[in-house]
């Protein structure tokens, strides 16, 4: 309205940069994120985790407004703890995915300003990735990138994971699933490249790997900076690989 008095309104949101991605394999899932947290042109910290172990078979990456992200993860973890107390087992991955959709949609009219990617192992032993929008729309996919550099990383994954715009050599076919070492190499390359081209990406990289029950380490044993986070000895196993990224 022209001439009407205007009021400056408090903006309850911010955007804290960073990028996350997840790739599902046949019997594993890889979920990764950088550790830089920024606001505008300022780096707030070089180490703020965006990827969280929820259970031995589920890992959640959260990107967007950091305060909302941390609060959301806190709430999801509490709901999973209540489930554990009620049912004496960890919630299955697809149930966690639906829980997350419900929790996000509950805030449809004051949304959590975050993109979530959930990775892990389904009850049938397959690797899975679920991606969500801020109000809870979700789907299961083979790979997904989100966050500040998603527009750089997602096309790369489309090409390298889905083989988009690539023709298989005559008499051969593209593989349906990549082996773990190839996936790790693609993840690391994605983040080093995003770090080069996007100012909000860098400092550190955390790669979580979830292995299906009873699987071998599939080449993970030789990886530099790897440590295990598994809490039980007969189920799925969770590992984290920590790497440095450029800090400029």
């Amino acid at each position, binding site marked *: 309205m022209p001439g009407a008095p205007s009021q400056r309104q408090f903006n*309850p949101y911010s955007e804290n940069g960073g990028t996350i991605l997840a790739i599902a394999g046949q019997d594993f899932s890889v979920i990764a994120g950088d550790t830089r947290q920024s606001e505008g042109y*300022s780096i707030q*910290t070089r180490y703020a985790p965006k990827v969280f172990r929820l259970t031995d078979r589920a890992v959640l990456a959260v990107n967007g407004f950091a305060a909302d992200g941390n609060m959301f993860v806190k709430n999801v973890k509490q709901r999973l703890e209540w489930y554990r107390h009620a049912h004496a087992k960890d919630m299955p991955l697809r149930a966690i995915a639906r829980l997350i959709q419900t929790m996000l949609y509950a805030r449809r009219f004051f949304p959590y300003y975050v993109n979530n990617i959930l990775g892990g192992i389904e009850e049938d032993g397959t690797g899975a990735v679920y991606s969500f929008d801020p109000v809870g729309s979700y789907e299961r996919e083979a790979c997904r990138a989100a966050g500040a550099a998603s527009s750089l990383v997602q096309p790369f994954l489309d090409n390298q994971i889905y083989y988009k715009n690539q023709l298989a050599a005559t008499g051969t076919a593209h593989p349906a699933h990549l082996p773990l070492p190839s996936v790790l190499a693609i993840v690391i390359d994605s983040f080093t490249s995003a770090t080069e081209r996007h100012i909000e990406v860098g400092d550190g990289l955390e790669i979580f790997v979830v292995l299906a029950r009873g699987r071998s380490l599939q080449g993970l044993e030789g990886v530099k900076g790897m440590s295990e986070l598994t809490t039980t000895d007969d189920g799925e196993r969770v590992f984290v690989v920590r790497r440095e990224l450029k800090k400029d």
Partner: protein
Amino acid sequence: MDHFPTSWGRPRNDAIDAYGTYPIAQRPYNGPKDAFSEGVQHTQQPIVTGTSVLAIKFKDGVMMAADNLASYGSLARFKDVQRLYPVGTHTVIGAGGDMSDFQYIQSMLDELMIDEFCAQDGHTLGPAEIHEYLAQVMYARRSKMNPLWNALLVGGVKDGKSFLAFVDLLGTTYTASTLATGYGAHIAQPLLRSAVETHEHELTEAQARQIIDDSMKVLFYRDARSINKYQVATITAAGSSISDSITLETTWDFAEGIRGYGAQTE
């Protein structure tokens, strides 16, 4: 949602509204009553403000500094305000932003510490707990669209662990070995990082103090909402102490030679 079927509109059959109660004139309202709710204003902007707070980790703990000015816009309104505040024996908080909101936070924390003391359960709140509490309060207030307009640093040492973290009016939190709020995040943070990062466990208290003093001097020269009077808090395993106000020695003779922005004619 309104769960009274009679409020949903004219019922289509007697099974729903057998006694023909529609339309109901007015159902009683049982929610909280506030005759002045339309007159309640939420904080839209900070009024009396403090500028930067700086903090670094060093070998034995955490050091934090803030000047003594509370500004009213560009007016240097209150020149003897303490913006560092001890909470319990292990923690110091420092605040930039609205000073009345900060004073409210101080009394809120005082009350919290008294409640915890009265529990007599052998536990005391350390810096990590104070920070978590503040983060929850700040996030809850921003979610009610009624923020406490501050950027806070929380520093301390407890059980041999030093702790330094940030929280602001949006509920955004993070930790690092060097932190700065407000203008200091742009001017002092780069100086602090180059002096401290990777040396956190070697820096002595004297070296840390030198870094803080140098940064506060730069801030006074560059930040128009600062004053040359500040305090330094040191928190180690032995406890916390906040210094008396320190007045910076500054020189301005070089200003005579500057040409170009002032009222000089040549």
